[in-house]
């Protein structure tokens, strides 16, 4: 049985590179982020603390991102997601909290290169200036006409997630925005 991501790792090469990031485990956790049990469940599952507002924390093999006042996104390896969901659901059984595997509901993209920020800033109404948007920042926003979330995953690399069904659209608009010759030159 083969498992495939939405665009099976499609790549657009150029001075700015756009790549679909393949399958990644993603877990939605909704609950009271101040609750000791929620914090403990996150720590046990990922080794990471609950991030602050608009932040993402990254460990060796997991990340935890703040999505809303009562929602976290936990990123793990794709094959780890079902087990992590089960463990967290177990740990939070007596808590008003919801854990759901959303790995396959999403697509992950990476945009890299010196103009990566600018390519994304053509689509997302977010201040991506290096002085405003650094490592550890997470933004839930939109890319042109669809919802998305953005964080910095390397010096010149942004990671983006969107819904799986619009992966082809997002790849299309990223490819256009990242095209050679379309650099803005402001950041």
């Amino acid at each position, binding site marked *: 049985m083969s498992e495939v991501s939405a665009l099976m790792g499609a790549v657009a090469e150029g001075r700015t590179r756009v790549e679909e990031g393949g399958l990644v485990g993603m877990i939605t956790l*909704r*609950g009271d982020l101040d609750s000791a049990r929620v914090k403990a469940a996150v720590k046990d599952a990922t080794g990471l603390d609950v991030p602050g507002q608009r932040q993402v924390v990254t460990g060796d093999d997991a990340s935890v991102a703040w999505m809303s006042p009562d929602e976290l996104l936990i990123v793990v390896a794709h094959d780890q997601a079902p087990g992590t969901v089960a463990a967290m659901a177990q740990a939070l059984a007596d808590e008003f909290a*919801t854990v*759901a595997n959303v790995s*396959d509901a999403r697509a992950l993209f990476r945009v890299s290169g010196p103009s990566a920020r600018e390519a994304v800033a*053509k*689509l997302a109404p977010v*201040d*991506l200036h290096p002085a405003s948007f650094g490592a550890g920042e997470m933004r839930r926003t939109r890319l042109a006409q669809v919802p998305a979330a953005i964080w910095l995953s390397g010096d010149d690399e942004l990671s983006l997630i969107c819904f799986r069904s619009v992966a082809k*659209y997002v790849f299309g608009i990223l490819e256009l925005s990242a095209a050679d010759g379309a650099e803005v030159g402001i950041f």
Partner: protein
Amino acid sequence: MSTRLASGGRLIDRSAAREFSFNGKRLTGYAGDTLASALLANGQTLMGRSFKYHRPRGVVASGAEEPNALMGIGKDGTFEPNQRATTTELFNGLEAESQNHWPSLDFDVGVVNNSLAKFFPAGFYYKTFMFPRPAWKHVFEPIVRQSAGLGKAPKDRDADRYEHFYAFVDVMIAGGGIAGLQAALTAGATGARVLLVEQTAHWGGRAPVDGVEIDGKPADEWINDALQALEGMENVSVRSRTMASGVYDHGYVLAYERLTDHAPEMDGPRHRLWRIRARQVITATGAIERPLSFAGNDIPGVMLASAVRDYVVNWGVSVGDRTVVVTNNDDAYRTALALHGAGLSVPAIVDARATVTGDLPEQARAAGIRVLSGAGIAMVKGKKSVTGVSICTQAGEGASTDEIACEAVAMSGGWSPVVHLWSHCGGKLIWDEDQAHFRPDPSRAPTGHDGKPFVIAGGAAFGELSSAATLASANHAAATAAEALGLSAPAGDTPATNDPAETAMEPVWIMPQGAGHAKRMKMWLDYQNDVKVSDVQLAAREGYESVEHTKRYTTLGMATDQGKLSNINGLATLAGALNDAIPNVGTTTFRPPYTPISLGSIAGEARGEVFQPLRRTPMQDWHEDRGAYLEPVGHWRRPYCYPAAGESHEQAVHREVLATRNSLGLLDASTLGKILVKGPDAGQFMDMLYTNMMSSLKPGRCRYGLMCNENGFLMDDGVVARIDEETFLVHTTSGGAEHVHGHMEDWLQCEWWDWKVHTVNLTEQFAQVAVVGPNSRKVLEKLGSDIDLSKEALPFMAWTEGKIGGFDARVFRISFSGELSFEIAVPASQGRAFWDSLHDAGGEFDATPYGTEALHIMRAEKGFIMIGDETDGTVIPQDLGLTWAISKKKEDYLGKRAQARSHMTDPTRWKLVGLETVDGSVLPDGAYAVAGGTNANGQGNVQGRVTSTYHSPTLGRGIAMGLVLNGPDRMGEVIEFNKVDGGTVAAKIVDPVFFDPEGEKQNV
């Protein structure tokens, strides 16, 4: 005639020739030319025809304010109409054509309107509506439609690409003249993030042309130093060819960057629309010179004095050997001196002021130029070009005192600050008596979210017309912005300048002041829309006292230039006619964009393949490879049917229905909404969302439910599965998932915020396949499963989970077709493989993919309603005979109270029935049941309508559902439905369940 001078032209590169064409004629200019300067250099003074009278027109200005020299630029996929020649940079291969002429620019038959001008007065267009009434439709409208409009609409697809860019800055500075540069230097020194934009390709604005010296250096040198300093600042960005087009609430600013208009061979997008959030905005947008209203002021060769100067200094172009300067201020003397300095003749400077002193007039006199004080132009002579002027006293009625032969007239009526950006978001203006213009009133600035000003005007845009005052004002603007941002501005000195002492200007709104009607009919205010002094005066006489009404009645300022030249002159004329003060008359409203921006830039990336996000299921490639005919369902594109070679869509649909009913059909149901509802209060929440009882549903079981909005109308339907005590999985319609999820969150966040319920939209987490038909169980068993799929273990309306063919499956025993049916959800990453293996395993059962139309037919055969067919936002469940799905026990649910309103309980509401045509034909979709007679409006009375209608391949006849007056009580009655082509068709009222009413096929 205009021509290129042997030397001069600070912006052109005489070593780089540029070939272009105008109306098919091949011409040559230089790099750095605008289309306007290149045309003038080639002696082409006639550049267009006016809108209404088709009068010959030449270029008036040298920048964004140009009303006349509008061209169609490019061809085919790059053609764009109404482009100002003055802001079009010349490039090799540029193709331009003039507009609004027929058959040619030189000879235009429409000019006959000109001779009939007295029959086309102000408000002509509106008057044609009134009398005689039939004349509008049969006479005027065809003529007006034929002759209206300037440029032609492009016929081809736009060949270029466009994009947006989101920028966030502390200080946004609009305008790259010396004021903008100085403001950027000062603001930049505070460390604030600064963005400076300039609409042209060049920095420094008018200063170099006007011979300004700053800090002892020629302006050009100071400008270069300033730019270098700015480029050295990490926190400052400068963009040329970028126009700030509008200022909006909360510091939102749009800027329009033209990337390749000047060099179409370059890669990348043509235009970029900057969507900027600025904490403070400084408008350093300069000022625009005003024309003077004298008879014949629209004849080609009559130009703004500043433009004449620009063409000589910037592009080395003479607009005529002899230029008469006419003015009411000192600044126009700079033009006379520039022309004189270039070796051209200035036969006279006609100054309306009674006494003329000041440094510049003295310099002119010293240069031997004749200065006529207290004088005006009585009339410009010439038709397609200026041949001379007759001079009069400004105080008189226009009797000619002298005639001067000339090829050009340089006019200056004073300067108006460009207050557009200041005004867009509510900045108010004050009337400056001394300079006779409106200028920004800093005490009534546009205010932001905190009630504090966020726009500051600086330089000439603030009404400071000397370079010294401009620079001081720019510094002050930057310091004000810094203070608002909580930053301290270093106390930078204002650079020193060499300004000559200028004496006061004197407002002149009509020249000569006592001009009679014949002259006033030849004084143009709005060149592009052909509005004259006499038109505005007529409007005033006809009772149009408000400047906004006069604008619309006369079309003053309504052309593509939005009255940049005509606004102040027009309202001063109106004030004069109303015998009121100019500030009492006020201005019309300044609205964005400052100059027109391309529609492409507004659309940005949204065109072609990425015009809108189209949603794709994990099996979408399979459908497309299979040649599925797709139909829109929300933003999904679902297979409507899968036509085989040579098969019509109808044939394909019928084949798919029969294959499913007889053996095995497979439907990609991934688009169905799937929303997780979880929490201690989930049962209570579900009971409020649905009309029926959901809290009593047992884990492992499914229940169909109806969802209404608070007005009682049916909103969505679907099957709910109870996962565990605290968890439900809500299935919604394909198009309704996002809306239903939003509806849930709305109620949870705004009304029932203390209920412990979470929702998670899992729609796309799962690929879902409906495995349907008598052989559906067999194909699943063949794939191999650890689930007992028997009727006993997994009865109708139960669900379970396990492995099927190695896939992680959740299996729902639900049926929308009336057949034995399993809806199976697998993780989306496994969806395509699962779909493929179902087809592989289903080969022996003739597994047939079916589309939405087969789905619709099968549900209609079973009498199942479809949201959007049987419902249209005005239908309640009771109309559809769904009272069995409305709980009587529940105290409340969303819509319950609304459904108790008198109109909702009215027994005459149309009710759902089945309809069978007597002749077996298919009823037209949406047909009305006729009731005989007519209503008060003379329309035929009706007693029902068709909501769904199909040919049923299972039954071999047309079947339909419809809402009919007292329908359920009229079983067996035959009523008539209208047809599209006239006539009616008879249909019998029957039960809506046409097929297998006992449900024997699905319950196996």
